[in-house]
């Protein structure tokens, strides 16, 4: 069986539609670095179930691969990296809207 690789729970915020990550203290943060990095598969499944139950805050939760960086969890795949910054053709999205929120 393949070894479980670390994950974060991520989704889109219901109202704004922007990418958010589930923190250890159950906030939806716009910053991936604040996410809870999950290293245990059973815990990951549980956190995803809990996320799914919060349908009035978010849409489309899923588990994304992540690794620990200097400032917290970082993306592994380029798609997830784009979700932490925004589009490459304009200074829109997270690259210019970095303020933290709960």
């Amino acid at each position, binding site marked *: 069986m393949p070894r479980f690789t670390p994950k974060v729970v991520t989704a889109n915020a*219901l*109202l704004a*539609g922007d*990418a958010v990550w589930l923190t250890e203290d159950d906030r939806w943060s716009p910053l991936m670095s604040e996410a809870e990095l999950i290293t245990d598969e059973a815990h990951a499944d549980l956190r995803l179930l809990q996320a799914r139950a919060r349908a009035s805050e978010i*849409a489309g939760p899923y588990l994304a691969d992540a690794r620990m960086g200097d400032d917290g969890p970082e993306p592994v*795949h380029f798609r997830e990296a*784009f979700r932490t910054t925004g*589009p490459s*053709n304009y200074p829109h999205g997270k690259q210019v809207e970095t303020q933290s929120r709960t």
Partner: protein
Amino acid sequence: MYIYNDFDENFVRTRVAQFRGQVERRIDGSLTEDEFKPLRLMNGLYLQLHAYMLRVAVPYGTLNPAQMRQLAYIADRWDKGYGHFTTRQNIQYNWPKLGDVPDMLEALADVGMHAIQTSGNTIRNVTADHFAGAAADEIEDPRAIAELLRQWSTDHPEFQFLPRKFKIAVTGAAEDRAVTRAHDIGLVVVRNDAGEIGYQVIVGGGLGRTPMVGKVLREFVSKADLLAYVEAIVSVYNLLGRRDNKYKARIKITLHENGIETIRDLVEERFVAIREGFNGYDQELLAEIEKSFAPPAFVTKSTDGYEAARLANPAFRSWSDTNLTAHKAPGYAIVSISIKKHGATPGDATSDQMRVMADLAEQYGHGELRISHEQNVILPHVHQSDLPAIYAALRKADLATANIGLASDIIACPGMDYCALATARSIPIAQQIATRFDELKIEHDVGPLKIKISGCINACGHHHVGHIGILGLDRAGVENYQITLGGDGTQTTTIGERAGPGFSAEEIVPAIERLVTGYLDLRSSKEETFLQTYRRLGLPPFKAILYPSEDKADAA
């Protein structure tokens, strides 16, 4: 242009009110995302990578100035001050907030527009030749039938849950500018031996993961029979199309698996069965609609000013060489406004630019605008004497790029910069290619060249029918770009051939440059286009240009 009657108005307003309630119930938690998703998709609302995206239908690509101004207003009020014109002649807003969408739809309804059936497994926005009603080579303006199809397909109870999405394109000209052979149904206006106008009906074309060129189902369907015949096709597909596998659900696969003879027989059978039901009301309606598409009152005046401006101003001459197309009325021209400034995002227009184009259409263009599937904006009816003034206004608005049909007039889907389905980015590749050709100053020498980029296998960027097609993929967690060559989206539709292994994001722009400069050495004369050269020589010499080191290895 067709103007909404009370029925259309009431229908659209009712739908907005319904959707407002659905959004409220989603926000207060009474609807789950699974319940809400099909409802929002029916109204053109997607959830993408960074935000929601609202896809607004521009039926058969036709807009009036008031509608264009309203699109600008919506961009300013609820989005980030711009809109993205798409390969289905639609406009997309990339940053709406969920709670604002009902107000955006209400604002669209104010100008007779909507976002209905721009998503989902329904009949999508009917597209048309963007030069419809203006082109010199046209038999008849195909937009009246497109409007009839829009009315028939909108909320058609039988066709709200088709096996998969269903796209129809129409053209009234021999030169196919509407990619009809890559649609579920393509309709081409033709004359029969008796001189009567009717339609050649093409079925089963499509791009995506299984690209196929459409086949002629019937050479001639009379105008009176068209709606019943199209309904028969969709009806047969609705029953026969596969629902067990999303990738085998489009009518192109139904046709492929059952054979065109079987489909033809089933359609004829169904057509005979339902034809009586179309007891002439559709023809009365069509006659009414046709009045809305009567040609504008063309005027006769001197074109001396135009000729003088061409002689006096080389930049204007260059622009008029590339961005104008022959018009059917004497002294008139069709203006293509390039939304492909070198280095900019293909198809993106700011709200200010939209207002400038609306003003120009009002002042000089008989109040008409078109969105082309190539992501440009058209002023279909312009007198040549007004071209210098139009050019000056476009220059001021940064809209005067002289590159229509050239290497930098690139179709690009939003790719992974916006789209949740994408496997790689498209926009930065398009930006870099256009910037590079601008630096090289060779695109006018290169001549007609269609480069089309898709950020995933679904092929919204039409890469299969690009002379040079680029497909962005994810190869082991890295963006990788595959090149196809020799594609063609016109009346001689051809699916491009894959050239070989893909290129990294860093390698793809130099590869395209090699290909285009290499073509300059291969062409038999300045008149032989890239596509003609490719057709004459085939893949091998182009492959040698793309993969020079492999070539050397073979020789060694």
